[in-house]
């Protein structure tokens, strides 16, 4: 609980500072030591929650959430490619999922499995460094991931504040700004071990200008790298 509170406080300070930045990065010992090397990655559909915070309360914004969800895989893909990774594109594109209900189920199931462990990782991300977390080796049954060394899960949670609330905050002295917190988790596609975890914050109108999320994502993956693909890779 204390750790959660500390993280929440850091987040609030970050938002208040107006900066977009990456937070700590946590790597599995085998990834850090080079025992595990990731060449190819498969990015799973991002899951984002965008909420409108206004004088009439909070309200989920489904369309805006969708915009963020659609933008994140591309931004993460760019960041990973710049680190030498081969990103398996289009395998889980919306069109592909639409055509194949079994694939859609498989994605929903693996996202659900990830949620269970994600709650623990969020709570104690440092333990990624001790290799504590795993989704279990049945992630290998996720057939779209067979050609990849790692699966990338993305979660984002954003707040868009209405003009009224911003004005109200100015008057009463509170803080009301737009921001999105994104976390990225890299999972070994065969063993299910969590290899890397990081999160980043982007401040400003991240829905109108989704590109602004790119920089903090890039920074948040600073300590992650794919070695140069060997052979035909």
């Amino acid at each position, binding site marked *: 609980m204390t750790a959660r509170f500390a993280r*929440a*406080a850091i987040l*609030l*300070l970050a938002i*208040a500072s107006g900066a977009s930045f990456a937070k700590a990065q946590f790597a599995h010992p085998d990834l850090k030591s080079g025992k595990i090397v990731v060449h190819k990655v498969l990015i799973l559909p991002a*899951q984002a*929650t*965008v*909420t409108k*915070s*206004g*004088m*009439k*309360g*909070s*309200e*989920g*914004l*489904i*369309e805006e*959430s*969708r915009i963020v969800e659609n933008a994140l895989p591309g931004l993460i893909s760019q960041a990973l490619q710049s680190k030498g990774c081969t990103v398996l594109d289009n395998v889980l594109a*919306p069109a592909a*999922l639409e055509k194949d*209900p079994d694939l*859609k*189920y498989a*994605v*929903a*199931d693996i*996202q*659900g*499995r990830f*949620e*269970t*462990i*994600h709650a*623990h990782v969020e*709570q104690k991300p440092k333990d990624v460094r001790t290799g*504590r*977390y*795993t989704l*279990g*080796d*049945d992630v*290998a*049954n996720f*057939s779209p991931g*067979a050609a990849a060394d790692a699966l990338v899960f993305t*979660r984002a*949670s954003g707040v868009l504040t209405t003009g009224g*609330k911003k004005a*109200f*905050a100015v008057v*009463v*002295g*509170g*803080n009301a700004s737009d921001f999105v917190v994104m976390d990225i988790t890299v999972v070994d596609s*065969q063993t299910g071990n969590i290899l890397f975890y990081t999160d980043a914050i982007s401040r400003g109108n991240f829905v109108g200008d989704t590109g602004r999320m790119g920089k903090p994502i890039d920074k948040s993956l600073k300590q992650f790298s794919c070695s140069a693909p060997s052979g035909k890779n």
Partner: protein
Amino acid sequence: MRLRLVALGFSLLLVCCGSASAQQPPSATPSPPPFTFTNVDLELLQKSNELDQQMADRGLVYEDAQLTEYVSAVGNDVLPQGPDLENVKWRFHVLRDPIPNAFALANGSIYVNTGLLALLENEAQLASVLAHEETHVLNRHAYLENRSYRKKALAANIFSGVAAAGGAEGGAGGAAAVLVGAIAPAILESTIYGYSRELEKEADLHAVGAINDANYSTEEMIITFKLLDSPHEVALSQGFYQDHPKLKDRIAYVSEAVDGLHARTPHPMVEEERYFAATEKAARDNVTMDIYAGRQRTAVAVAQRLVKKDPNSSANFRALGDAFRTLGPRTPDPTPEELSSRGKKDIRKSLVKLTPQEYDDELMALPAGKAAWEANQKQSEDAYRKALEIDPAEAPAHRGLGFLYEREHQFAQCVDEFQKYLELSPAAPDQAQIHRRLDAARKQIAANAPSPATP
């Protein structure tokens, strides 16, 4: 994230299932109260439509045309005759979710979870759930609750603003006030999950009339509540059904309503066999969903019922084997210690602190956990063997046995079963996983082999 998804304003929309109206006598053809749409209502309607899309896009909808058709037919049976409602299009969906629940959206979309279908025993019970949800739509409960919520939210927002102002004056309190302001809406939302008890009661009582008019047995609605009241899991949080009027109260007032009704025929419909035939596959799939959701006890209960109803299905026995195998160090039913408030507190604490695997390991370290595991392994093995007796080509039973023997460190048998699985399922999607485990088992066999005697 699932919680966040719900919090994504859907709490306004997920007008969860549950109840009906005391003042209004049950009637199958109620004239819906006049309703004038405001902008706020139209926003909610739009969000309901978007939510439908979101559910489908995220693979949450169970796409089985026959089952959907069946649920729709039952739902349509209990719909009152009358003119179409403005901005309502009746659509029935099954959700891939092991939690026993159902809910209605303002636009007329009604969702029933696979977890509820697996729990119910017959068509009359399903009809009562659907009639209940339909009442929420017919009587515009979602819109009414949404309007009420917005008023509450506005009040809370002003409160948090005042708190922030106080914090600014007091110095360091500002950040804490912002935190409270950020949390308050969520707390507020949590108070409106589900409808008010009055609206739930309204839906319950209307459902009694609707199912009676459709010639379903109204007694089955009471049995539905009893089924909901006998959970197999230790309830660690206040679930939706606990949020409703106490189930005992619901049973009491629905029983009273049932007593006051005259059945349309001497033998109202129950339709157990038809229901089972339509839902058997979904219930079996739900066993796997239960297992992944950490609801292994429910998985065992559902699989036991499947086996009882259809003892000639190898797939049902295989599901039972899977359920017992993954039950691990737990007893099939919660122990009195687990159900005590102290026990619940301890479990809650452990589940927050430990990953599922770590929690299982902790239980296994206890003598009771080990004893439960041994008993469950035996039950699992028996179920898998029965599946193979019915159908020797039931490949997943070999796979299950492989995992079972691997855990028991019986590596030779483990290798044998995994090999049979791969022979029977050459295109299995989990080949890589099984091959890896086969290699590991073979290494163990080699390591355990007695070294040749030295001359």
